[in-house]
């Protein structure tokens, strides 16, 4: 199921306000997701029924339909951790801010790039017939489909697609490459000694 939030420039301060980041941790953030819009009154948990995420027909949504430059602003990965913990697994938007995009890929959230008019059409379809809001984002076929609509082809770079399809652990992979990296650094150190400190 998808929830339409097709606003341009949804920034990471909106996705998770800094005041909601209370511990040195990647978890415990779902409650703070969109806190400035979800709750009536800053710092409260007084649910605003008008905010789309709070409407009963969107409970349990796993796909977010967003606007241009989604995830702009602060690099805080907490934005993606909060989206993931809340249940989102894919964000379909016309464009993404670069750091946010990278954070999505490393946390099992698919950032699918789709032309604005297509996102808007999907959003309208989802809003018009809530009962038919059964969107599918197919990463193997690079398609977003909704019942009764032809599939829309979305884009993602092949490397990110592979990372997501295989659920790769970037850190563990990188550590395996250390011998190659170290050989490079040893050569580089003789060429650019001023870069190496101590």
């Amino acid at each position, binding site marked *: 199921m998808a929830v339409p939030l097709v606003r341009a420039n949804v920034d990471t301060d909106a996705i998770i306000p800094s005041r909601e980041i209370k511990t040195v941790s990647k978890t415990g953030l779902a409650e703070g997701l969109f806190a400035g819009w979800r709750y009536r009154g800053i710092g409260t948990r007084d649910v605003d029924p008008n905010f789309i995420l709070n409407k009963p027909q969107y409970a349990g949504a796993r796909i977010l339909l967003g606007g241009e*430059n989604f995830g702009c602003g602060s690099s805080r990965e907490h934005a993606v951790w909060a989206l993931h913990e809340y249940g989102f697994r894919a964000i379909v938007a016309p464009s993404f801010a670069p750091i946010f995009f990278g954070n999505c890929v490393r946390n099992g959230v698919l950032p699918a790039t789709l032309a604005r008019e297509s996102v808007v059409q999907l959003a309208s379809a989802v809003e018009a017939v809530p009962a038919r809001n059964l969107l599918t984002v197919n990463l193997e076929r690079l398609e977003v489909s909704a019942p009764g609509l032809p599939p829309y082809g979305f884009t993602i770079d092949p490397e990110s697609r592979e990372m997501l399809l295989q659920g790769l652990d970037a850190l563990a992979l990188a550590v395996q490459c250390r011998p190659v990296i170290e050989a490079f650094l040893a050569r580089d150190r003789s060429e650019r000694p001023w870069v190496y*400190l101590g």
Partner: protein
Amino acid sequence: MTLFEKIWRQHRIGEERNGTAVLAVDRIFLHERTGSVALKTLRSRGYPVCDPARVFCTMDHIVDTRPGRGDDCSTPGGHQFILETRESARAAGITLFDVNDPDQGIVHVVSPELGIVLPGTTVVCPDSHTCTQGAVGSLAWGIGSTEGEEALATGALRVRKPRTLRATFDGQIPAGVGAKDLSLALISRYGSAGGNGCVVEYAGAAVRGLEMEARFTLCNMTTEFSAVTGLIAPDEKTFAYLQGRRYAPRGQEWSRAMGSWGSLITDAGAVFDREITIEVTHMAPMVTWGTNPSHAVPVTEVVPAFENSGATREAYDRALSYMALKSGVRLTELKIDAAFIGSCTNSRLSDLRRAARVLAGRHVAPGVTAVCVPGSSAVRRMAEAEGLDRVFSAAGFEWRESGCSMCFHAGGESFGYQHRVVSSTNRNFENRQGPGTRTHIASPETVAASAIAGHIADARSLVN
């Protein structure tokens, strides 16, 4: 070849695959807000930091900036971020610029100030404004905390190769106009996603004419353009700025480095994916009216009509509603409640000097809260040595310890609900500086002039 391509190739380990390569990372910077969690995760997974000598950490984001500060801060849970960062940094063996260390300050102010970032280096930090450091001709970009873990553990990072965009600023910058205005003009003209996914090289006579501190300001705002980062080819100003700084090479190493840095330019005929040219000769100081840095107009202007706003209908209406504005309202008629000078964008010595020139012999308007937060402890000391603190204080500004302070609201100190603030910072997002706070971003001199006038003001009328 472009400058970017040269740095990319110098750092590429192995070949590109699927448009992605592993790049050697020369410098890693961390701060207490997003670096702490990377260090903590790395430790829990049993991976040591690969080369601690090239990793630096500072306390800037939530550290208290009120005089006489300690580890306590107004951000709920903030104390724990400070303690955990200190403990993790110690355990990892990296250099920490702690709360009351003389080298403490905002990461992107401290790094160049100490000569940590150098031309031709790669620099990463889990902070979106890392692009600031590209001003010395480095490839410096903001990453997530998880990417930070990879860089810390291996000294390298898997990176998607960005596209290239050259932004050429031609002409002569008029008096009273600065790097902040150039940036707001660029972003308002091409939109906040105008540089999406690109590395932006700033070029042209106007950019070459900028002093180093102004170049940091210009590069700083590149993330507000949705770009991966920005950079400026190093020149004599860059080398003169860096020489003698603590972590910069010395003696023979300096000469050797200089031999290599000379080639850090975009070759004539090199091709960019995109080119933008902006004429600066008739530019005016810029100020934002809405809730995104692209919502900017000359300070002499009115809030634009929807048709001229460059925003979508929904974004335009939301912005005006949040900012309590109407189309056609003259910006200089907007009364302000507060003025803020600080942040990684505009808190360096030259920023404070320009603001002080406006403030000297004047006082902030009644009812206006005015705060100045130097970008680093070193900037603060230099400013005090030349008496700037006394100018700010005499004018009614609070003079603070260094840090990010009220550039963003982290649950503690903030500006008031629905208060209108003119701010030398980088983001005018909803609730960015406080619940309901209405932010107008501008240059430090515009902030100073507005504080004096009690409404948004054109500093040129006060200085000239």
